[in-house]
Every structure is written in C-alpha cells, then in structure tokens.
C-alpha cells in the first residue's frame, strides 16, 4: 500500500511539474492525458536525480529526499496558482454512431490491457525481481544503493562486480531504491511498479498524441498494436530498462514534434531537453539518442532561428545530465564496449564480413521482431497506401529522421563492438528495436491517411453512417470474443 502511494506521489509530482511548464495557450481538455503520461517520466527522472545526490551525502536520505520532493511540489503549485490558464468547459460525450464506435474500441483496448495486466502480475508472482537483466543489473544496483550506505558507489565498482555493468546509468535503480527508502523496507513491489508505470506511460503517450494530432480511433488502434506486442509485455514483466528508455525516446520525439508545430516556447524546449537527458540517465543507448537529438536541434536551429533557442535546450540538458556526468566522471567503471582500444576497431567499419552479418541479423530479427505469432508489418504497410507526401512532410519527417539515425547509430555500435558480434547481436538487437517500436507506431499512425475526406455532401452523411456502423458492429463482435477470452483467462 505504502509502495503504491510512493509511486503515485512521484507520478503526481511529475504531473504537477509538467503542468507548470505546459504552454498556457494549449487546452488542458485536450492535453490532460499527454501531461499525465509525461508526468511519470518527469517524476521519476527528477526524483532520481535528487536521490542520487542525497544518497551520496546522507547515510539515511529518507527525510531530506521527502523535504526536497515536497519543496519542488510547493514551488510548482505556487507557479500554477500565479499563472492564468485558458479554461475550457467539459463537453459531455454525445452518443452518436462515431462515439459509440469509439467507446466500443476503447472497451476492446481496456480488455486487452486487463489481459496483459494479468499476464504481468502472474509473471511478477513467479519472478518478483524480474528476469536476468532485471535482477542482475538494475535491481542489484538498486539493492546496493539502498543497503550500501553513502559508499554505495564505491561498493558497486569493486572488481568482483564488473559483470553487473556498474557503468550503466542509474535512473531505474535510483527510482527503485528511493521508493524502498521512503517505504522503509526492501520490497520487489517498488521495482515492479516502476516497470509497469513506464509501460502505462508509453501507452498514454501514444494514445494522447495521436488523439490530439490525428484521430481518436487511430489512437486506440495504435495503442492496441503496442499493447498486443508480446515482447513489450514480456520485457515489462522482466523489469528491463528498454521499456523506460523507449518511453523517454517517445516522449522526447513527441515534445520535439509539439514544439516544432508551435511558436517558440521556452518551457516546452526546456522539457524537451530534460527528457533527452533523462533518456541518457536511463541507459547507455540514451547517450546515443542524446547525441542525435543535439544534432537534430542544431539542424533545426540552422533552419529556423526564431523557433529554436539555445538557452532552454542547454539549461535542460545541464540539469538532467548533471548526475550522469558526476557518476561517469567520479564513480563509473569503464564501459565494456569502449574499454578496449577504440582506434584499433575503426577498421571494422569497412569489414565486409561484419557488415554482412549485421545486415543479415537486422533482417532476421526484424521479421521475428516483437515475438508476434503473426507479424502485423504487412498490414501496417498496407495501411500506408494513399498516404500523402504533405502529411509525411508535416508530421513524420522529424520523428522518422531521429528513428533512422538511431538505427544507423546501433549499426555502427555493432560494427565497432569488441564483443563477439553474433553473440552481441543475438542477445541485444531485439531489445534495441523494441526501444524504437513505440516511436515507429507513432510515426505510422501520424502517416496514415484516414479517414479520407469525401467531397459530395449529400452522400457524405449516409456513407459515414454505414461505414461507422459496419466498423462498430465488427468491433462489437470482437469485444464479445475478447470478453469470453478474458473470463476464461481469469479462471
């Protein structure tokens, strides 16, 4: 109970923080789910940064952490009360055929979420500390932070623990350790709730963004694709850091997308760089993402000097990267990928054999990606037929460029890896692709051209009604089947 309260309060702190910085000209009625979903990342990111410093200074950082968290909350509330925000009246949902279809689809989505939730809870009961990466890296580090006193960082860097990758960033372990410190007991529930929160946050981000910029029905279809990706659910249950990193990549791309579609806003660009830094604070791949984001930011600044300003971006990066820089400079062990002579490995970039192996693995793993019984990529690709270049140019070019640059970055890392290439590819590529999967679903949803606008007004109403009625009835049938599955799985 106290553990749940602790994660809820962290989420609330993040929500209030995002709400404070959210542009005042945007309507809260449309953006509430997006702000709420960004809240989990902001809450866990901020509190982990604070806890990093307090745990290094104080033997028992419980009270000082609480006081600092509360101070941020009070400051945010003060700013919220000072600022005038647009108020919009709540609209009741009118029961027309479009909304009924939406509600039916929403019901399908919620039932799927329940089914996945049951799977995750069952898995947590069997493996409370997650799978290999969960316990051997993230939760082990959390245990050291929690029980190692002020000297946890030096304990973690003893040669006997080299196998646990002590150089890995600490957002997840610090979040778990902070929750356990606040509750006063070492419990796996903290780790489980942190993992589940990022999954919920990712779903919320996808659905809210597509609802705002596209269509509510497509938003739910995108959510359904994500929630039904088996490896997405399995890695949530495994408590790996790939889902949280995927969340931060998605959140940053969404914030970049919003700030690119709006007039210059200091707070929005500050949030964008904060989330970029949090990605690097989550996993080493986040460092690559941060470098790519800096490149994109420079390119955008070059293209549009009015919209992109230096101050907020640099300020946010400094704030979110400060703990990572302290950790990497003063405490961190060498990374296994950069430990051996880097210059000697540059020649691997032109090694035909290595290039062939990597391309081959990218092909094989992409086809098997997600552990789907039947892959949905062909259907998703068919959905893109009829997409207009204007839509791609307006909505997708920026997120797509970042995602493609990330893939190129992963490719180069594999070329330069000192580890056995086949082993490295087979153990990590699936997870790396999963980090980009939520962003790919977002791009897909933004790209599809649906519904196509009809021009003849006389036919339009009748056509739309028939179309939605067929859609609604089909979903009703699917809902019924799903209901049976749900009842059966609960037994």
């Amino acid at each position, binding site marked *: 109970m106290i553990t749940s309260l602790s994660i809820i309060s962290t989420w609330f702190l993040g929500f209030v923080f995002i709400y404070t910085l959210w542009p005042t000209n945007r309507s809260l009625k449309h953006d509430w789910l997006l702000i709420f979903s960004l809240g989990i990342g902001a809450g866990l990111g901020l509190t982990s940064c604070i806890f990093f410093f307090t745990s290094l200074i104080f033997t028992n950082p419980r009270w000082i952490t609480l006081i600092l968290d509360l101070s941020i909350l009070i400051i945010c509330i003060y700013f919220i009360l000072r600022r005038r925000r647009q108020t919009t009246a709540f609209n009741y949902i009118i029961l027309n055929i479009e909304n009924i279809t939406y509600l039916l689809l929403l019901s399908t989505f919620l039932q*799927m979420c329940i*089914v*996945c939730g049951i*799977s995750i809870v*069952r*898995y947590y009961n*069997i*493996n*409370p*500390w*997650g799978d290999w990466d969960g*316990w*051997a890296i993230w*939760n*082990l580090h959390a*245990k*050291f932070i929690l*029980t*190692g006193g002020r000297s946890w960082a030096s*304990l973690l860097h*003893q040669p*006997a*623990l080299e196998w*646990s990758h002590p150089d890995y960033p600490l957002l997840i372990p610090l979040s778990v350790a902070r929750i356990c410190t606040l509750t006063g007991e070492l419990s796996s529930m903290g780790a489980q709730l942190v993992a589940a929160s990022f999954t919920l946050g990712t779903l919320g981000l996808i659905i809210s963004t597509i609802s705002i910029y596209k269509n509510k*029905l497509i938003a739910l*279809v995108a959510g*359904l*694709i994500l929630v*039904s*990706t*088996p490896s997405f*659910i*399995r890695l949530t*249950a495994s408590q790996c850091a790939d889902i949280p990193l995927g969340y931060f990549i998605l959140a940053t791309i969404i914030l970049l997308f919003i700030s690119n579609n709006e007039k210059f806003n200091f707070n929005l660009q500050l949030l964008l760089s904060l989330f970029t830094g949090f990605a690097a604070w989550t996993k080493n791949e986040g460092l690559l993402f941060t470098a790519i984001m800096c490149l994109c930011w420079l390119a955008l600044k070059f293209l549009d000097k009015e919209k992109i300003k230096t101050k907020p971006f640099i300020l946010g990066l400094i704030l979110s990267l400060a703990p990572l820089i302290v950790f990497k400079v003063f405490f961190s062990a060498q990374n296994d990928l950069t430990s051996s002579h880097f210059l000697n490995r540059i020649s691997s970039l032109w090694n035909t054999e290595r290039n062939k192996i990597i391309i081959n693995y990218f092909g094989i793993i992409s086809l098997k990606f997600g*552990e*789907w*019984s*039947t892959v*949905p990529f062909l*259907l998703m690709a068919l*959905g893109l*037929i*009829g997409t207009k270049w204007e839509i791609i140019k307006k909505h997708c070019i920026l997120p797509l460029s970042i995602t493609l640059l990330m893939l190129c970055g992963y490719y180069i890392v594999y070329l330069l890896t000192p580890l056995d290439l086949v082993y490295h590819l087979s153990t990590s590529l699936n997870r790396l692709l999963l980090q980009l999967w939520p962003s790919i679903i977002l791009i897909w949803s933004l790209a*599809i051209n*649906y*519904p*196509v*606008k*009809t*021009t*003849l007004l006389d*036919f339009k109403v009748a*056509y739309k009604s028939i*179309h939605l009625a*067929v*859609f609604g009835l*089909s*979903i009703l049938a*699917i809902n019924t089947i799903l209901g049976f599955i749900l009842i059966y*799985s609960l037994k």
Partner: protein
Amino acid sequence: MSKVNTTQASVIKFNRSIIYNIFFLCITLSLLSLAIYNTTQSLYNMPKEGIGASRVEELRLQGLKNELDKIPNIKNINYIGDRPGLHVKDIPDLCMEEYFLSQFILAPTILELGNNNLPWAMTNLRNPKFDQEDMKHWKVIKNFNQGIILLKNQSQ
C-alpha cells in the same frame, strides 16, 4: 459543360475515398484480430504459476543472509560454488547463474571468487561431487543444508 465535368470528378473522387476507407476498415479490423490473437497467445505462453530462479535462491540463502547480518563489518566474502563442467546427470550446469543470483540476494556483501585471503567464505553447492581442494583453507561455522555453508578462514 464544366459543371458536369466538376460533378463527374467529384463522383470519381468520392468513389475513390469510399474504396480507400473500406480498404482501411478491413486493415484495421485485421490488425485488431491479429492483436487479440497475439495477446491470447502470449497470455497462454507466459508462465501462470511456479517459482522463479531468484525466488528459489532467495529462500535457499535466507538463513545465511540472516547469519551474515549478525557479523559486524563484513563486506567481502569468498564464494565457493560448483565448478563448470563438473555437472552430473539431472543437475543443470548453472554454476555462474547461481553465483550471480547469490550476489544479488546477499548484496551489499560482495562475493569474491577464489579469494582465500578473506576471513569468511560461503559455499553454494548443488553438486555432491564438489572439489574438496576448494575447502581445505576453511572451517565450517554453520551448515544451512542444501549446499549452503558459512565458513571461516583457518589461517585467521
């Protein structure tokens, strides 16, 4: 004349939009069915009950952990486990995984492999055919069964 052409163009455009929307409807419904099929599959493929490796090890090492908590200023201990390749029938060769799991359970105590200069040691032996050579420096302090023994260095 131009009005007729405009109407014809609008009808063609309208027909195209109907075809595309129906096409997209089919794709969406197929995606939904696929999503449900996959979720059902993954639900059945995921383990429903049982006890995972970390929980098993947590229970096995609970007694030793309580004992180590009572010893003041204990930071590093020697770890004696099954050796790779010494496995017998029906016992999987999980010696390294057991070492990592033991480290996870006993943290913040650090387990060192093959350091006979440390004052304390522990064993985690599932294999009855363990190497007696590993044990010659050590005196048994407490046996927790299931291959878990707390040892003290004889030379200290």
